[in-house]
């Protein structure tokens, strides 16, 4: 069975206010350390972890973070080279880099292509300065257009941008401008996520204090329907709850997650899934490195899923995709429970599969609960 790789790069120049990912700024790690010093050492640890992965064909690699584009391309290239050396890396494998529009240059982009990357995803988030400010993002919105055209010029075949909607203070018109700005770029793919306020973030504290107010769910729903409509109009088709792409430009790596394929997450806090077993690594980069350099496993904990858990996951993930669920996946009484959702226009069962309509996607979690309970 093919094995996809996720490579976690747990570093950022600065932590954004809404972010609860496992990422650290250099100043949080050690005094005076530059990312170059940290980077080399860190990649050594990742390569150690890689040694324990079972050999197989590798259809996709995804470098996420953190901010992978902060690291020198050569360091990231060491990981790709190591995978190519030990595993059967498909010649057309999708190799994605998550990048901050501020931290790329034409030279760096060319180097990324040289070491093997062929897909790049920029964190655009919004075209509106006041929205970026509320998100505590550092980049200049004009840099996004520059970064995208540089990436295209350098030779990236597949370019994506990430957007966030539902930021405090963002109106439906703000959001429309952001989507239009994104669609005006030479891109192949859009991921658009509703902002989730995670506990413990700066944003959560601002909301709790009343400095910022989250938009209500009705506005969020309208924002979702808007991005769906504008993407479809622009030739980017919906294929997963929060993802739209030109034909053939879907993100194969994420599809691997959603189809319950095998994937291995390298790096601190990274999760892996192999044939119904799941594990995750210790969270802190220092602990992660210490364990690996001491010849120990970096795994913090694991779980083996039983048949019912596997089925729940499969339904929970598959229903979010364009192909939806096959009728055979569901039991008769479960189908019966879905009848009212079909009647009310949340589900499309006109083909041989059960698919969510745009309004159905907005209540996908509720429909999943209806099925599995």
């Amino acid at each position, binding site marked *: 069975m093919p094995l996809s790789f996720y490579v976690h790069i747990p570093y950022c120049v600065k932590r954004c206010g809404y972010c609860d990912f496992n990422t650290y700024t250099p100043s949080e790690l050690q005094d005076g350390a530059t990312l170059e010093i940290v980077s080399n050492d860190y990649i050594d640890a990742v390569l150690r972890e890689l040694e324990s992965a079972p050999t197989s064909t590798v259809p996709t690699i995804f470098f996420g973070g953190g901010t992978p584009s902060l690291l020198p391309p050569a360091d990231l290239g060491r990981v790709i080279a190591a995978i190519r050396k030990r595993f059967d890396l498909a010649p057309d494998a999708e190799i994605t880099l998550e990048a901050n529009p501020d931290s790329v240059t034409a030279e760096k982009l060319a180097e990324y292509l040289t070491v093997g990357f062929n897909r790049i995803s920029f964190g655009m988030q919004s075209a509106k300065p006041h929205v970026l400010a509320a998100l505590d993002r550092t980049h200049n919105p004009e840099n996004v257009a520059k970064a995208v055209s540089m990436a295209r010029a350098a030779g990236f075949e597949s370019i994506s941008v990430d957007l966030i909607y539902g930021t405090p203070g963002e109106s439906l018109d703000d959001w429309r401008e952001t989507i239009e700005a994104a669609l005006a770029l030479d891109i192949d793919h859009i991921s658009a996520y509703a902002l989730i306020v995670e506990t413990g973030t700066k944003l959560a504290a601002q909301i709790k204090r009343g400095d910022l107010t989250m938009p209500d769910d009705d506005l969020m729903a309208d924002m979702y329907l808007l991005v769906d409509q504008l993407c479809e109009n622009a030739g980017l088709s919906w294929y997963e709850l929060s993802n739209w792409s030109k034909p053939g430009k879907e993100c194969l790596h994420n599809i691997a997650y959603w189809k319950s394929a095998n994937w291995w997450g390298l790096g601190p806090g990274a*999760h892996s899934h192999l044939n119904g077993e799941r594990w*995750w690594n210790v969270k802190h980069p220092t602990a992660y490195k210490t364990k690996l350099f001491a010849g120990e496993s970096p795994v913090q904990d694991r779980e083996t899923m039983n048949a019912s858990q596997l089925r729940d996951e499969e339904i*929970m993930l598959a229903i*979010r995709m364009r192909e939806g669920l096959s009728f055979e996946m569901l039991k008769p009484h479960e189908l019966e429970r879905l009848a009212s959702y079909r009647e009310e226009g949340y589900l499309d069962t006109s083909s041989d599969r059960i698919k969510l309509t745009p309004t159905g996607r907005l*209540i996908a979690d*509720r429909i*999943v609960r209806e099925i*599995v*309970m």
Partner: protein
Amino acid sequence: MPAISLAKAPQPAATNPAQIRNFCIIAHIDHGKSTLADRMLGITEVVEARNMRAQYLDRMDIERERGITIKSQAVRLPWRSGIDGQEYILNMIDTPGHVDFTYEVSRSLAACEGAVLLVDCAQGIEAQTLANLYLAMENNLTIIPVLNKIDLPNAQPEKFAKELANLIGCQPEDCLRVSGKTGDGVAELLDQIIAQIPAPQGDASAPARALIFDSVYDSYRGVVTYVRVVDGHLSPRDQIQMFSTGVRHEMLEVGVISPEPLPSKGLGVGEVGYLITGVKDVRQSRVGDTVTTYNNPTKKALAGYKDPKPMVFSGLFPLDGADFPVLREALDKLQLNDAALVYEPESSAALGFGFRCGFLGLLHMEIVRERLERESKLNLISTAPNVVYNVKMEDGKEVRVTNPSEFPDGKVAAVFEPIVKSTILAPSEYIGVIMELCQDRRGVLLGMDYISEDRVEIRYTLPLAEIVFDFFDQLKSRTKGYASLDYEEKGDEEGNLVKVDILLQGEAVDAFSAIVHRDKAYAYGVMMTGKLRELIPRQQFEVPIQAAIGSRIIARESIRAMRKDVLAKCYGGDISRKRKLLEKQKEGKKRMKMVGRVEVPQEAFVAALATDADIEKIKAARKAGN
């Protein structure tokens, strides 16, 4: 000191009634009754100084903590009068101090010839004390007015002596002044009890008649029955008989409390003591009943026996459904000691399995609940209390309703509800707010008297249902805590009462129905529909919430349709978290109650039905569980 050692004092069964004085102490919570009682135990030397502890006679933790007496006690105190130098036996009968236990109080009073009216001379008399005082006067008891806490810097003995004198009809100088704390005046009080209170009278040769004034379950000895012998004699060899039931019991032990149980050769006329018969349940040995002997039974019972009648009902449910058997066992155990407690299993769609319990009043309810929680380590939810309604149908049928959900459908001719006569004592500056509150609660003013220059006694009839619904809290908050309340039943009266149903998407939800006065139906409807709108999560369709009387809608709210219920992001690391959330929601869904197509979380039912204190508790439990 005029104490007499127990061995040398007149012995039980051999004491001349002329040497006996039976008295009780009537006092409000905090007015120092327990401290005075402690002091009396001390100076009569029935308790040695080294064994003394505070509130010696209060047996239950709950009594000590709350400073109230739930069950009464009777202690035999030998004393040599400082006036005539003669030996006497004083029986101090402790009375419960609360409105819910009026019947028990009245039986304790019936066992005495006199009462010490104890009033804190920094606070003055309170409503419950006044009610008990009236009860004592109706029983023709000799009243000895006593001002306590004269050692306090803010004591106003002159002012309150006048107040007491007005109430009893004596002179202010007749009020004794004591300090339970320092012991000042306590010996003089004992002497006055002997001098003023008449000795008991009875016919020693008549068939035995003894009044049960308390009955307590003891896990080692079974039921301990406290009696006051009126006529004849009870001896350890007797077989006794309960007059109300005719049931015969073996006598295992007779004795007096001094203040530990002390077996005796019997009890004679006027004496107070205890009986142990091997009975395991206080319902077989009820307060107010007459004890006689099997071989020579009396033909005439002592007056005043009543079956305890529950006035307030509430559902008690374990927070954890698995605790239902524990709750049943705990109630069974509690009932051994509480003849007034009634309960039957109840199943609620919202709260699961529990019991519908009947109580004498709100304090009784609180005490029962607290004891269940404390003694059986239970976590309970109680539903808002309600009273008993009698519903007369047009076809002449009558229905007794202890739970609003039992309110009959069909043509109702009349609804009767319990009415009480209430007495409120407060500083006169609060007359206005008190009258406002009472009128708002359908009260009818009976009268008002100044008991001193600046304190009034206000009397109202009120529907009990209105008192049960946060009346105490309102009264306390509107009078800054200065008002006190007492009430007594006054029978049932017809009321303009209706049942308000709450409908979710057109379906009535039993648990939310309430019986209210027609004028208040709208307010209840608005309150409940508003509350539910906050508590029920949005569904994928609009949910109308209506309040209705019969088929007439009186209030309406709606929960807007939920349009978004999805987490947008789902990467590798999110999957496991998302599945765990789903598993948790599955568990939650089990606790969801379907009303038609509407999912109502159990929490919504609880929050709508339970008291605020319960809701806090549930929140805390949930927090601890996470």
